[in-house]
């Protein structure tokens, strides 16, 4: 925990409740077959929270294997370009495997091993979570299968290859549009079948209880480190903290310690960047919070892109990590409570921000993270001179080279 501010009762942000509800959102809406496994998981997870041995093992892996703490980098040329006084980048792109996902997969795979499961499964969109799960499984000696939509396998063939190198089985999912939502469904179906010996490593702050809170616990290290690092530089509390939101794991990992440790009047403006794809007025976007309505998908109640009959709609984004029709339940709650502001960012805006960071700082970001960067000029203008902004740079862009090239960047 951050030692910057000790939480007191009045400032406490406390969610979820014991049933996994963040306000009205979250819960457990799954077939009975997996309900007992979820209860068992919730229990095992709670035990780890009070277990110093687990904390020590996980902490050591975060330090020596992931490379934590990740730097908080003052991006001076970027700050100047966007008109802010200071911009800090939380460098999750420097995590082993290239994104924040590994924080979560190590936690869950450790938990799987502790629960005596020999086999883990995961869904993946861009392949980042799949690679991170395959990596953790290789490290800890567990069998691993990753479900991936056939369209995503095509778009992210390098990650497919990596997962196989790491010893994981990659299971193609041809249902629907062959993207992330289909992969989640296929993984849940498979889990229903193999629930007795299999642990489902979910990749974002979504899914039935206890996944959203568990993923938050394994990602909160991002925000906790940021608070400590700001204090270490004698910085004030930032004016704004920005993160991209797909399912919402890197964002909640960054935001939660600010919500938990700071009283409301001291909190920075917390801003989540959602994928607006080709624009909110097109039907090609992934902006569940801006354009969706509450409903149930994949076992939890949250904002959701859905049609009039309640069927989930296909989401779209240039970034495979943000094209999910739902969003983590805690984000729905934070939106309704006005505790976090969510802003749409289009493909084009994200690509521009991608190019800007690359040229001003020599850092090639993931396209997902570029959505957060794209809000910088707007926030700097809104906050006025002297603005201090932190951006969670959730991942690096190596995986996105083909997409960016197709988008026309960096050509002669």
């Amino acid at each position: 925990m951050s030692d910057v501010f000790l939480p007191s009762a009045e400032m406490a942000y406390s969610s979820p409740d014991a049933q996994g509800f963040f306000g009205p959102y979250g819960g457990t809406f799954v077939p009975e077959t997996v309900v007992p496994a979820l209860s068992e998981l919730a229990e095992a997870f709670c035990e780890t929270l009070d277990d110093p041995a687990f904390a020590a093992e996980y902490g050591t892996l975060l330090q020596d294997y992931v490379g934590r703490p990740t730097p908080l980098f003052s991006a001076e040329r970027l700050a100047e370009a966007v008109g802010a006084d200071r911009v800090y980048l939380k460098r999750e792109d420097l995590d082993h495997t290239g994104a924040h996902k590994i924080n979560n997969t190590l936690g869950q795979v450790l938990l799987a091993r502790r629960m005596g499961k020999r086999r883990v499964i995961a869904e993946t969109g861009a392949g980042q979570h799949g690679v991170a799960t395959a990596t953790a499984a290789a490290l800890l000696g567990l069998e691993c299968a990753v479900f991936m939509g056939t369209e995503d396998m095509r778009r992210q063939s390098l990650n497919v290859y990596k997962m196989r190198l790491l010893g994981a089985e990659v299971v193609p999912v041809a249902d629907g549009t062959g993207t992330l939502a289909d992969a989640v469904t296929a993984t849940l179906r498979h889990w229903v079948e193999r629930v007795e010996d299999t642990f489902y490593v979910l990749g974002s702050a979504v899914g039935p209880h206890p996944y959203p809170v568990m993923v938050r616990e394994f990602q909160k290290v991002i925000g906790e480190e940021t608070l400590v690092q700001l204090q270490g530089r004698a910085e004030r509390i930032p004016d704004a903290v920005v993160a991209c939101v797909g399912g919402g794991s890197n964002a909640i990992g960054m935001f939660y310690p600010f919500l938990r440790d700071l009283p409301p009047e001291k909190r920075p403006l917390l801003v989540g960047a959602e994928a607006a794809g080709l624009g909110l007025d097109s039907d090609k976007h992934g902006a569940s919070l801006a354009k969706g309505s509450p409903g149930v998908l994949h076992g939890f109640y949250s904002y959701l892109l859905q049609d009039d009959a309640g069927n989930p709609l296909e989401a779209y984004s240039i970034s495979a990590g943000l094209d999910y029709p739902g969003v983590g339940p805690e984000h729905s709650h934070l939106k309704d409570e006005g505790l976090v502001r969510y802003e749409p960012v289009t493909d084009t805006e994200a690509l521009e921000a991608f190019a800007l960071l690359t040229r001003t700082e020599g850092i090639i970001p993931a396209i997902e993270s570029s959505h957060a960067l794209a809000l910088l000029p707007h926030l700097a203008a809104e906050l006025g001179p002297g603005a201090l902004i932190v951006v969670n740079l959730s991942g690096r862009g190596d995986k996105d080279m083909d997409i960016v090239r197709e988008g026309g960047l960096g050509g002669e």
Partner: protein
Amino acid sequence: MASNASDCVAGLARGFAPDRAALIVYLMAGYPDKETSLAALHAAARGGADIIELGVPYGDPLADGPTIAEAARAAREAGFGLRESIRLAEEFLSEAGPDAPPVALMNYLNPLMRMGLEQAAESIRNAGVAGVIVPDMPPDSAAPWLSVASGLDTVFLVAPTSTPERMQKVGERSKGFVYCVSTTGVTGERAQLAKDLAELVDRVRSFVALPVAVGFGVSGPAQVGEVARFADGVVVGSAVVRRQGDPAEVEGFVRELSSAVRAARS
């Protein structure tokens, strides 16, 4: 246990008889189109279905295997959702008259939420539908629905993984019958019944006073006959849906299943 059919019992209980297992036939609303699915409902009734489980097509059928998922996709393409499925049930029930087998809607939770739980319950009731089965709504998560769904039998499911406490809870909250999922996994025909199925049903029965119907993976007359020996009801889904494009074939097949149920305990 189930009451006598002649006792003018409302709801799904009417489908159960004391001396033999009930045959519960699953059909997909709107598959392959509205008219054919209506004809298939009548065919199933004529063939001897004791209860009809009418599937509502949904875009993310988490608990369903390939046959039902594909039928749902086709039905959605034909414009079918919850509203249309309720209308279909109503049409069937009014055409078939008082002797029609009771109908339970099998639908996922989100379409109910999208319509509004209260309004959904109201339309389902008004259509004469006796009950609902919501595969992604376990009893612990059902309070909002149950608070508006009086007059409807909400059937909950137990699975081979359910703990005794959960079986007890399902038994307490369920109305009409308890749906016992034969195996971990999704719906779909399987060559073999799960082993220890009779023991599972016995275990469920020790926590549940309602009739216990077994479903998932029951594919033909032989398996139906086997399950009918120890369960109060047998659900056949994918094997019927596979034939749904041809109502005459549905009728013939259901007739075979119905004879199997009748022969099981004689």
